[in-house]
């Protein structure tokens, strides 16, 4: 494969450096909006849909980056768009199931949902899986950053007399330090605003590159007819080759990837949780999926398509044997003038940084809410400290961001073993997402899904997945829809179907066995040695799990071992977990979304539709979370005392940056005026003399 170095001019580097300084400064400015961990992670649930929709572009585009889609666009053509246009199938369940549940249940992380819906053990497992998932995403981001930068840099340089080789590891370390620093300072508001700007620039840069490419080739017609016929199809071949085929990518990305992206991607969910309401979240998601994803598909893949057309026209300009992950940089350098090339590269690199920083922020949130705070509560309980005032964990959140950046950088090592970023990401997705996808999906949709079932499906499912990896020809091939097995990386994509079915099967079996399991555990509890028996079961589970990974036994015996393993896990979970199905499904499944809304408000929601009103504001003493409007204004809003209100600066371009949620207090008689307290002002940062718009939330 042909590798490139030293691409670009001094002017390009100057533009890249200026761009990065501007973006970092912009992010740092918004750190003033972080007054608590809630602001740091969720931006205070205040933003308008359009702001979130554009901020998602930079995150979404770069996570499915220019580098990997240009590579696949070069190798396969327009079918590189497949993954951007298969996300609608699970949207109904997201819009009217998961999104309202996440917002109304006020969970701060997905593992917290697992504790409330199932048990603390389920939360612990979910934390491990989710951290692995998001840290893996950070790793993919760093790997892509590294691969994008290599062609721009020399093979080595001398600094203070030392000869430094520019390797992937070197680039990853440098970019990790840079990325970590701005997320650590800025928080979610910084991420949202930098992503907003970068979203626009990214789309502009991508479209610009496509237009320049068409002009370079002599127009769309020439471009289209230079592409070999099979490069023009929006789909890859149904089941071949193993490295890129339709059916595998449908299950890996269209099913598991879409569910994972919408349901368990904390980075994305935190964006939706930063919108001012559920309806705004739906609008942001719709706009993103309808318009931004197809546009993004063009933006990220077009360099590969152009590269293929140029290569067909003149193989000396772009070698057919070019390293696929370098196609984007090489094509951009060929068709853009110095300076413009620098701008395009700056947009690419900063977009990748957006993805990485979003996920660093998300992992830090999980660390704070699912590890740091529960551990502090546990130790306080042990020491007998009661009613300690909740601490502001901003400092810990920043240290967590640094820690997660380092961990993400380390995961580059295994991912670098794959031929392209696309395949590394595909394998990562089809392996890590199915257990949590099944757990969240069943948890939200199936009231009968029990804590024992979720833990068994996670542990037993992973054991079955390991067997799938050990015996792909026996276990995955029957589900592979005729896809051939590549011995070096067997069933990268279609493995997702097997992994999902494996976890789902165990979940269903254990749920069906709920009553027999309860009866068995009741009988077991009558035995005076019950604790010892359960501990013995747990030890056996560990030994069985180890044997599934390492012991060279025939498949049939290992499958029996897996059955024993998940049944023992189910017994152990049923013994340890006190589960109240009515309480633990109340407002936490799709069957009780209305109840979730009621719990969110604390009383019956007022669904009468009202108008928005414009008001001026004045600060009064007090600390209670009430805002006081006139009787007439409240009538216009169809609001009653105790209803929830959202109030924002009337300047729409701010997108809700200066806004806050509160509760309607006792009405007064001064129309067009709202009385707020100092705490409201500090959080919303309203500007003197500026009019506000208020609306009833529910």
């Amino acid at each position, binding site marked *: 494969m042909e590798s490139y170095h030293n691409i670009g001019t001094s002017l390009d580097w100057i533009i890249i450096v200026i761009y990065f300084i501007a973006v970092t400064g912009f992010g740092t400015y918004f750190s003033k909006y972080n007054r608590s961990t809630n602001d740091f992670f969720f931006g205070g649930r205040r933003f308008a849909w359009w702001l979130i929709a554009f901020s998602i572009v930079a995150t979404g585009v770069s996570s499915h980056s220019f580098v990997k889609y240009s590579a696949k666009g070069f190798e396969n053509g327009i079918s590189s768009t497949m993954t951007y246009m298969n996300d*609608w*199938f699970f949207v*109904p369940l997201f819009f009217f199931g998961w999104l309202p549940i996440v917002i109304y249940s006020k969970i701060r992380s997905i593992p917290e949902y697992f504790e409330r819906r199932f048990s603390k053990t389920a939360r612990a497992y979910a934390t491990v899986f989710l951290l692995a998932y998001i840290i893996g995403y950070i790793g993919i981001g760093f790997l892509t950053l590294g691969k994008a930068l290599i062609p721009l840099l020399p093979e080595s340089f001398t600094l203070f007399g030392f000869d430094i080789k520019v390797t992937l590891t070197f680039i990853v370390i440098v970019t990790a330090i840079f990325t970590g620093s701005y997320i650590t300072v800025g928080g979610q508001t910084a991420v949202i605003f930098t992503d907003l700007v970068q979203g626009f620039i990214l789309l502009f840069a991508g479209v610009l590159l496509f237009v320049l490419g068409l002009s370079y080739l002599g127009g769309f017609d020439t471009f289209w007819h230079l592409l070999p016929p099979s490069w023009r199809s929006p789909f890859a071949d*149904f089941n071949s080759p193993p490295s890129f085929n339709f*059916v595998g990518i449908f299950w890996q990305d269209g099913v598991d990837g879409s569910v994972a992206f919408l349901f368990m991607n904390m980075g994305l969910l935190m964006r939706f949780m930063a919108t001012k309401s559920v*309806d705004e979240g739906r609008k942001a998601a719709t706009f993103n999926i*309808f318009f931004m994803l197809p546009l993004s598909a063009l933006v990220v893949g077009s360099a590969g398509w152009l590269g293929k057309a140029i290569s067909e026209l003149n193989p000396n300009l772009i070698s057919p044997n070019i390293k696929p992950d370098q196609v984007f940089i090489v094509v951009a350098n060929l068709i853009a003038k110095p300076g413009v090339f620098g701008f395009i590269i700056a947009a690419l690199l900063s977009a990748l940084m957006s993805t990485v920083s979003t996920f660093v922020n998300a992992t830090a949130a999980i660390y704070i809410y699912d590890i740091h705070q529960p551990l502090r509560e546990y130790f306080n309980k042990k020491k007998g400290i009661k009613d300690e005032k909740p601490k502001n964990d901003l400092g810990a959140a920043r240290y967590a961001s640094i820690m997660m950046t380092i961990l993400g950088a380390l995961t580059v090592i295994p991912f670098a073993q794959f031929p392209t970023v696309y395949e590394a990401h595909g394998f990562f997705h089809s392996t890590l997402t199915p257990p949590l996808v099944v757990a969240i999906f069943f948890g939200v949709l199936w009231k009968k899904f029990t804590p024992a079932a979720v833990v068994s499906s996670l542990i037993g499912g992973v054991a079955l997945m390991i067997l799938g990896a050990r015996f792909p020809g026996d276990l995955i091939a029957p589900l592979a829809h005729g896809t051939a097995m590549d011995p070096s990386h067997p069933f990268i994509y279609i493995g997702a179907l097997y992994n999902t079915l494996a976890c789902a099967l165990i979940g269903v079996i254990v749920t069906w066995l709920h009553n027999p399991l309860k009866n068995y555990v009741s009988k077991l509890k009558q035995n005076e040695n019950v604790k010892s028996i359960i501990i013995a079961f747990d030890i056996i589970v560990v030994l069985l799990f180890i044997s599934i990974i390492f012991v060279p036994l025939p498949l049939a015996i290992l499958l029996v071992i897996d059955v024993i393993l998940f049944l023992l896990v189910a017994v152990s979970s049923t013994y340890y977990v006190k589960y109240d199905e009515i309480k633990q499904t109340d407002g936490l499944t*799709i069957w009780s979304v209305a109840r979730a809304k009621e719990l969110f408000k604390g009383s019956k929601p007022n669904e009468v539709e009202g108008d928005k009103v414009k008001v001026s504001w004045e600060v009064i003493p007090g600390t209670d979370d009430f805002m006081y409007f006139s009787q007439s204004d409240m009538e216009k809003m169809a609001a009653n005392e105790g209803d929830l209100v959202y109030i924002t600066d009337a300047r729409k371009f701010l997108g809700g940056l200066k806004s806050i949620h509160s509760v309607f207090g006792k009405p007064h008689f001064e129309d067009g005026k709202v009385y707020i307290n100092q705490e409201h002002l500090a959080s919303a940062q309203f500007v003197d003399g500026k009019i506000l718009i208020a609306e009833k939330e529910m």
Partner: protein
Amino acid sequence: MIPFSQTWLPFIYLYGVGGLFFIIGMIIINKSKSIDLTRKRHRYWNKVLYFGFVYFAVMHLVMILAALYL
């Protein structure tokens, strides 16, 4: 000529199997009453959801026809 296995077969599979997931999702949100069609806003979202499915199917249809005949 682009083979059937790279055009109409993936299209049928995508909107057949994907459509099944979509319809199951629609049935669940209706049965669970999480979408309340007596509310104007929810009726709007109901239409958006169906429109989205057709929107992507038509977009893929046009792209296949362009690949085959343009």
